[in-house]
């Protein structure tokens, strides 16, 4: 029994169940949301410390030996993702105290939030491919309900696209798992990896790997499968948008990293070349889509797509340095992107709009908020010394070392266009004077409302902005952490041995 391996899943599950049991007491649910996400964050840190000491943590459910039982596996990469899950969960829980409408809180907002976090945590920690599907579904079902909470027209339209494409992706995933089981005869990822390496018929495996790529590509919003994302992410209330923006697509990216470093490495000349062009096109289409938008959250949604390209680029180049860059970029991106959505929520609360044309003068009235926007925005564009700069630097260096001149050029160009988009938001929302058609009273009213809970709005934003600056300033320790994770990912033998060979620390409960 390894408690730190199970706690990041068990805590949100238990908190969700408890919140359901205490359905009537919103006050208790609010308290529990903060405490449980704090505990989840703490258990994530514990897990990270443990994986840094021991390498791999493996726990076999029901103490059946490895290929027969469902295993929970944590390597440094999974532990990093769990920590990020905790950070974002905590930030969203605090922010929700102020931002979530009372009606949503009464209709199960907090239980759904816990369930979503449990699904995400489970997807990071499972070592079984079918179990990964189950955690995906847990996460998706919670996200469906969160997305439609409130029931406005735009939410319904967005939700139909979101639900359809995600269910389609799940069906492809399930079919791919079925084909893989029929070919290999096992579901344990380490066991699959071991048997794929010795299989004669590599063609079938490549076909299956393409199905996984499409399925996870839809979930990660990669080109050309991303259209559900900008159609739906700007429709729910802002805390939900921020939670989705931070975590959901990154689960798809995590799954891509996991299967394309561990299992499907038999024909990298084919699979990873496709990934490389997917990454380049994702970056370009995402950033161009953002350039055409004039709504705060839609611009940010398209930038999620564009940034996913950077992460997949790290995987696609498939060198040690590139994987480090990809992991570093994921860490930077989750924090920055959530923060930008949270800032857009504060702007909406004070000034009553997400439309750039209806906004203006934020810098004059709320200079602190303007600075808090500028930190993640410049970090997203990759301005030194913030976190995004180092992520881009590592990736571009890796692509130059691989001789992918075109892709590294695209990466630089997309960085520039990202800066253009962020400056557009800055100029329209923060810098230009208040538009004439906006009356002063509406804005002041909003400002008073915010004053009651302003700490709950500002605390998560300030904390995440501090994280962004710290990742930039202390880039070296974070780089070393990413390097440890990349060491494990580029040597899948260690993972296989830890799960299959009773190596490392094994947590099977003795009967």
């Amino acid at each position, binding site marked *: 029994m390894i408690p730190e391996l199970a706690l990041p899943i068990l805590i949100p599950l238990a908190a969700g169940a408890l919140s359901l049991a205490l359905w009537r007491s919103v006050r208790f649910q609010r308290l529990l949301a903060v405490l449980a996400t704090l505990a989840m964050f703490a258990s994530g840190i514990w897990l990270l410390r443990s994986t840094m000491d021991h390498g791999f943590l493996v726990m076999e459910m029901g103490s059946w030996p490895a290929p027969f039982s469902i295993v929970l596996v944590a390597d440094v990469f999974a532990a990093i993702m769990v920590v990020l899950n905790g950070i974002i969960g905590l930030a969203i829980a605090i922010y929700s105290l102020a931002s979530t409408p009372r009606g949503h809180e009464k209709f199960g907002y907090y239980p759904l939030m816990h369930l979503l976090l449990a699904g995400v945590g489970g997807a990071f920690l499972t070592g079984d491919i079918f179990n990964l599907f189950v955690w995906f579904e847990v996460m998706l079902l919670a996200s469906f309900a969160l997305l439609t909470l409130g029931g406005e027209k735009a939410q319904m339209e967005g939700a139909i696209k979101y639900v359809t494409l995600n269910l389609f992706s799940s069906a492809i995933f399930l079919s791919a798992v079925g084909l893989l*089981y029929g070919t290999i005869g096992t579901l344990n990822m380490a066991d699959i990896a071991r048997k794929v390496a010795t299989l004669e018929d590599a063609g079938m495996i490549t076909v299956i790997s393409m199905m996984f790529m499409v399925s996870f590509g839809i979930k990660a919003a990669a080109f050309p499968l991303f*259209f559900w994302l900008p159609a739906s992410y700007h429709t729910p209330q802002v805390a939900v948008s921020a939670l989705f923006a931070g975590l959901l697509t990154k689960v798809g990216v995590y799954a891509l990293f996991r299967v394309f470093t561990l299992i499907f490495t038999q024909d990298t000349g084919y699979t990873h070349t496709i990934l490389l062009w997917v990454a380049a096109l994702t970056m370009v289409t995402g950033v161009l889509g953002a350039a*055409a938008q004039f709504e705060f959250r839609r611009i940010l949604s398209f930038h999620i797509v564009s940034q996913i390209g950077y992460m997949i680029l790290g995987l696609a180049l498939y060198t040690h340095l590139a994987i480090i860059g990809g992991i570093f970029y994921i860490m930077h991106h989750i924090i920055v992107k959530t923060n930008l959505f949270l800032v857009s929520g504060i702007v909406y609360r004070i000034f009553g709009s997400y439309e750039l044309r209806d906004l203006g003068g934020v810098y004059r009235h709320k200079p602190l908020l303007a600075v808090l926007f500028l930190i993640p925005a410049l970090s997203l564009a990759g301005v030194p010394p913030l976190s995004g700069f180092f992520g881009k630097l590592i990736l571009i260096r890796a692509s130059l070392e691989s001789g992918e001149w075109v892709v590294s050029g695209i990466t630089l160009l997309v960085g520039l266009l990202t800066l253009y988009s962020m400056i557009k938001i800055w100029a329209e929302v923060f810098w230009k004077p208040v538009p004439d058609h906006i009356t002063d009273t509406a804005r002041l009213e909003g400002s008073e409302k915010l004053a009651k809970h302003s700490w709950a709005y500002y605390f998560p934003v300030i904390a995440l902005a501090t994280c962004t600056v710290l990742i930039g300033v202390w880039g070296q320790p974070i780089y070393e952490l990413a390097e440890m994770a990349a060491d494990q990912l580029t040597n899948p033998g260690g993972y296989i041995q830890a799960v299959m060979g009773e190596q490392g620390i094994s947590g099977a409960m003795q009967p």
Partner: protein
Amino acid sequence: MESLMAYVVGILFAAAIYMMLRRSIVKLVIGLILLSNSANLLIFVMAGMTRGAPPLIPDGAQAPLGAVADPLPQALILTAIVIAFGVLAFSVVLIRRAYEIVKTDDLDQMKDTDT
């Protein structure tokens, strides 16, 4: 038998995709139902079909004698069916609410959030 089932799975997938490409949201959900069923059937066929040999171990033996059906895919399908049931129940409620709020069942009329 297996090649026949392979064709059935293929036809089901094709029918599902065709239904999903229609403009009506009711047909969209029917497409999703067919899609999840065809995926389940695919798992069933892929694992190999063994007739009349349940995976039971006779008295006194440590392992089943001879070839038996693989029980694992059936467990997978059962799990997948339960999940699909929950998800599809949600989708049915969703299209009803969407119909009430948007006042159309035509996907072409639901383009406000597109870009």
